[in-house]
Protein backbone atom coordinates (compact mmCIF):
# COMPACT_ATOMS: atom_id res chain seq x y z
CA UNK A 1 0.00 0.00 0.00
CA UNK A 2 2.87 2.37 0.71
CA UNK A 3 3.90 2.23 -2.94
CA UNK A 4 0.57 3.64 -3.91
CA UNK A 5 0.19 6.57 -1.56
CA UNK A 6 -2.18 9.09 -3.04
CA UNK A 7 -3.25 6.80 -5.83
CA UNK A 8 -5.22 4.06 -4.12
CA UNK A 9 -8.02 4.32 -1.61
CA UNK A 10 -8.84 1.28 0.49
CA UNK A 11 -12.34 0.87 1.85
CA UNK A 12 -12.98 -1.77 4.50
CA UNK A 13 -16.18 -3.76 4.86
CA UNK A 14 -16.69 -6.42 7.46
CA UNK A 15 -17.49 -10.04 6.70
CA UNK A 16 -16.75 -12.01 9.86
CA UNK A 17 -17.07 -15.77 9.60
CA UNK A 18 -19.49 -17.11 12.18
CA UNK A 19 -17.24 -19.95 13.28
CA UNK A 20 -14.29 -17.73 14.07
CA UNK A 21 -14.94 -16.78 17.66
CA UNK A 22 -13.32 -13.37 17.60
CA UNK A 23 -14.06 -12.32 14.04
CA UNK A 24 -17.16 -10.41 15.04
CA UNK A 25 -15.81 -8.67 18.08
CA UNK A 26 -12.71 -7.67 16.17
CA UNK A 27 -14.91 -5.98 13.59
CA UNK A 28 -16.68 -4.17 16.45
CA UNK A 29 -13.27 -3.09 17.72
CA UNK A 30 -12.31 -1.64 14.35
CA UNK A 31 -15.52 0.37 14.19
CA UNK A 32 -15.25 1.46 17.82
CA UNK A 33 -11.81 2.81 16.98
CA UNK A 34 -13.26 4.51 13.89
CA UNK A 35 -15.79 6.24 16.15
CA UNK A 36 -12.84 7.73 18.03
CA UNK A 37 -11.04 8.70 14.86
CA UNK A 38 -8.37 5.99 14.93
CA UNK A 39 -9.65 3.39 12.49
CA UNK A 40 -6.45 2.94 10.48
CA UNK A 41 -4.30 2.30 13.55
CA UNK A 42 -6.69 -0.30 14.96
CA UNK A 43 -7.19 -1.93 11.55
CA UNK A 44 -3.47 -2.52 11.12
CA UNK A 45 -3.03 -3.68 14.69
CA UNK A 46 -5.84 -6.24 14.34
CA UNK A 47 -4.28 -7.66 11.22
CA UNK A 48 -0.87 -7.79 12.86
CA UNK A 49 -2.07 -9.39 16.08
CA UNK A 50 -4.54 -11.86 14.61
CA UNK A 51 -5.58 -14.38 15.92
CA UNK A 52 -5.02 -12.85 19.36
CA UNK A 53 -8.29 -11.02 19.20
CA UNK A 54 -10.25 -11.88 22.32
CA UNK A 55 -11.93 -9.18 24.42
CA UNK A 56 -9.01 -8.53 26.75
CA UNK A 57 -6.57 -8.37 23.80
CA UNK A 58 -8.79 -5.86 22.02
CA UNK A 59 -8.96 -3.60 25.10
CA UNK A 60 -5.19 -3.79 25.35
CA UNK A 61 -4.87 -2.70 21.73
CA UNK A 62 -7.29 0.17 22.33
CA UNK A 63 -5.00 1.32 25.12
CA UNK A 64 -1.96 0.97 22.90
CA UNK A 65 -3.32 3.32 20.30
CA UNK A 66 -4.55 5.84 22.86
CA UNK A 67 -8.30 5.35 22.75
CA UNK A 68 -10.73 6.19 25.52
CA UNK A 69 -10.87 2.60 26.80
CA UNK A 70 -14.09 3.08 28.78
CA UNK A 71 -15.94 4.22 25.68
CA UNK A 72 -14.24 1.54 23.61
CA UNK A 73 -15.14 -1.28 26.00
CA UNK A 74 -18.75 -0.12 26.18
CA UNK A 75 -18.90 -0.03 22.42
CA UNK A 76 -17.69 -3.56 21.87
CA UNK A 77 -19.66 -4.99 24.82
CA UNK A 78 -22.89 -3.41 23.64
CA UNK A 79 -22.23 -4.27 20.01
CA UNK A 80 -22.74 -0.63 19.14
CA UNK A 81 -21.79 -1.14 15.49
CA UNK A 82 -23.62 -4.40 14.90
CA UNK A 83 -25.85 -2.74 12.32
CA UNK A 84 -22.93 -1.71 10.14
CA UNK A 85 -21.41 -5.16 10.34
CA UNK A 86 -24.72 -6.79 9.50
CA UNK A 87 -25.20 -4.40 6.59
CA UNK A 88 -21.75 -5.27 5.24
CA UNK A 89 -22.45 -8.98 5.69
CA UNK A 90 -25.73 -8.70 3.77
CA UNK A 91 -23.95 -6.81 1.03
CA UNK A 92 -21.35 -9.58 0.85
CA UNK A 93 -24.07 -12.22 0.61
CA UNK A 94 -25.87 -10.27 -2.09
CA UNK A 95 -22.60 -10.23 -4.03
CA UNK A 96 -22.29 -14.00 -3.56
CA UNK A 97 -19.04 -13.67 -1.64
CA UNK A 98 -17.98 -16.91 -0.05
CA UNK A 99 -14.37 -16.19 0.80
CA UNK A 100 -12.40 -13.59 2.75
CA UNK A 101 -10.67 -11.51 1.78
CA UNK A 102 -12.54 -10.62 -1.37
CA UNK A 103 -11.30 -7.39 -2.84
CA UNK A 104 -12.85 -5.23 -5.53
CA UNK A 105 -10.31 -3.13 -7.39
CA UNK A 106 -12.28 -0.51 -9.31
CA UNK A 107 -15.03 -3.10 -9.33
CA UNK A 108 -12.84 -6.01 -10.46
CA UNK A 109 -13.38 -8.90 -8.09
CA UNK A 110 -10.44 -10.83 -6.64
CA UNK A 111 -11.41 -13.81 -4.53
CA UNK A 112 -9.10 -15.06 -1.80
CA UNK A 113 -5.74 -14.11 -0.36
CA UNK A 114 -3.30 -13.57 -3.24
CA UNK A 115 0.40 -12.85 -3.48
CA UNK A 116 1.11 -9.11 -3.61
CA UNK A 117 2.14 -9.35 -7.28
CA UNK A 118 -1.35 -10.47 -8.26
CA UNK A 119 -2.99 -7.35 -6.78
CA UNK A 120 -0.20 -5.10 -8.04
CA UNK A 121 -0.82 -6.17 -11.62
CA UNK A 122 -4.47 -5.23 -11.45
CA UNK A 123 -3.83 -1.97 -9.58
CA UNK A 124 -1.22 -0.99 -12.15
CA UNK A 125 -3.61 -1.76 -14.99
CA UNK A 126 -6.27 0.41 -13.38
CA UNK A 127 -3.84 3.25 -12.77
CA UNK A 128 -2.77 3.01 -16.42
CA UNK A 129 -6.26 3.29 -17.79
CA UNK A 130 -7.09 6.07 -15.33
CA UNK A 131 -4.24 8.06 -16.81
CA UNK A 132 -5.74 7.96 -20.30
Amino acid at each position, binding site marked *: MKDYRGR*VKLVIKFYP*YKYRDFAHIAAEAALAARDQGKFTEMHHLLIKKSPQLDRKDLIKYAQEIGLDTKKFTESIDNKKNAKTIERDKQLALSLDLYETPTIFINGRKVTGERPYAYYKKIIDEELQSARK
Partner: protein
Amino acid sequence: MQRRNREGRATAILLFCLLLFFISQSSAEEKRYQVPLEDSPSYGSGEAPVTMIEFIDYQ
Protein backbone atom coordinates in the same frame (compact mmCIF):
# COMPACT_ATOMS: atom_id res chain seq x y z
CA MET B 1 1.45 -25.42 -57.13
CA GLN B 2 0.92 -21.84 -58.33
CA ARG B 3 -2.74 -21.85 -57.49
CA ARG B 4 -2.00 -22.83 -53.95
CA ASN B 5 0.41 -19.92 -53.60
CA ARG B 6 -2.24 -17.44 -54.68
CA GLU B 7 -4.79 -18.95 -52.36
CA GLY B 8 -2.24 -18.96 -49.58
CA ARG B 9 -1.59 -15.25 -49.99
CA ALA B 10 -5.27 -14.35 -50.01
CA THR B 11 -5.78 -16.41 -46.89
CA ALA B 12 -2.84 -14.71 -45.20
CA ILE B 13 -4.27 -11.28 -45.93
CA LEU B 14 -7.70 -12.30 -44.72
CA LEU B 15 -6.14 -13.80 -41.65
CA PHE B 16 -4.25 -10.61 -40.93
CA CYS B 17 -7.47 -8.58 -41.12
CA LEU B 18 -9.22 -11.02 -38.85
CA LEU B 19 -6.30 -10.89 -36.47
CA LEU B 20 -6.65 -7.12 -36.19
CA PHE B 21 -10.34 -7.59 -35.59
CA PHE B 22 -9.75 -10.08 -32.83
CA ILE B 23 -7.05 -8.03 -31.19
CA SER B 24 -9.49 -5.16 -30.91
CA GLN B 25 -12.02 -7.48 -29.33
CA SER B 26 -9.69 -9.17 -26.94
CA SER B 27 -8.94 -6.22 -24.65
CA ALA B 28 -12.03 -7.66 -23.20
CA GLU B 29 -14.75 -7.08 -20.92
CA GLU B 30 -13.37 -7.23 -17.43
CA LYS B 31 -16.44 -7.80 -15.32
CA ARG B 32 -16.85 -4.92 -12.92
CA TYR B 33 -19.05 -4.84 -9.85
CA GLN B 34 -20.70 -1.73 -8.48
CA VAL B 35 -20.15 -1.96 -4.75
CA PRO B 36 -21.62 0.94 -2.73
CA LEU B 37 -19.07 2.58 -0.46
CA GLU B 38 -21.66 3.77 2.07
CA ASP B 39 -20.04 5.06 5.23
CA SER B 40 -17.47 2.30 5.45
CA PRO B 41 -14.15 3.30 6.97
CA SER B 42 -11.34 3.90 4.56
CA TYR B 43 -7.79 5.11 4.29
CA GLY B 44 -5.55 6.29 1.53
CA SER B 45 -6.23 9.24 -0.66
CA GLY B 46 -9.84 10.28 -1.10
CA GLU B 47 -9.08 11.51 -4.61
CA ALA B 48 -7.46 8.27 -5.66
CA PRO B 49 -8.11 6.94 -9.16
CA VAL B 50 -8.17 3.41 -7.83
CA THR B 51 -10.57 2.30 -5.13
CA MET B 52 -10.11 -1.04 -3.43
CA ILE B 53 -12.99 -2.38 -1.38
CA GLU B 54 -11.94 -5.21 0.89
CA PHE B 55 -14.35 -7.57 2.60
CA ILE B 56 -12.30 -8.61 5.57
CA ASP B 57 -12.31 -11.10 8.40
CA TYR B 58 -9.71 -10.10 11.01
CA GLN B 59 -9.31 -13.55 12.44
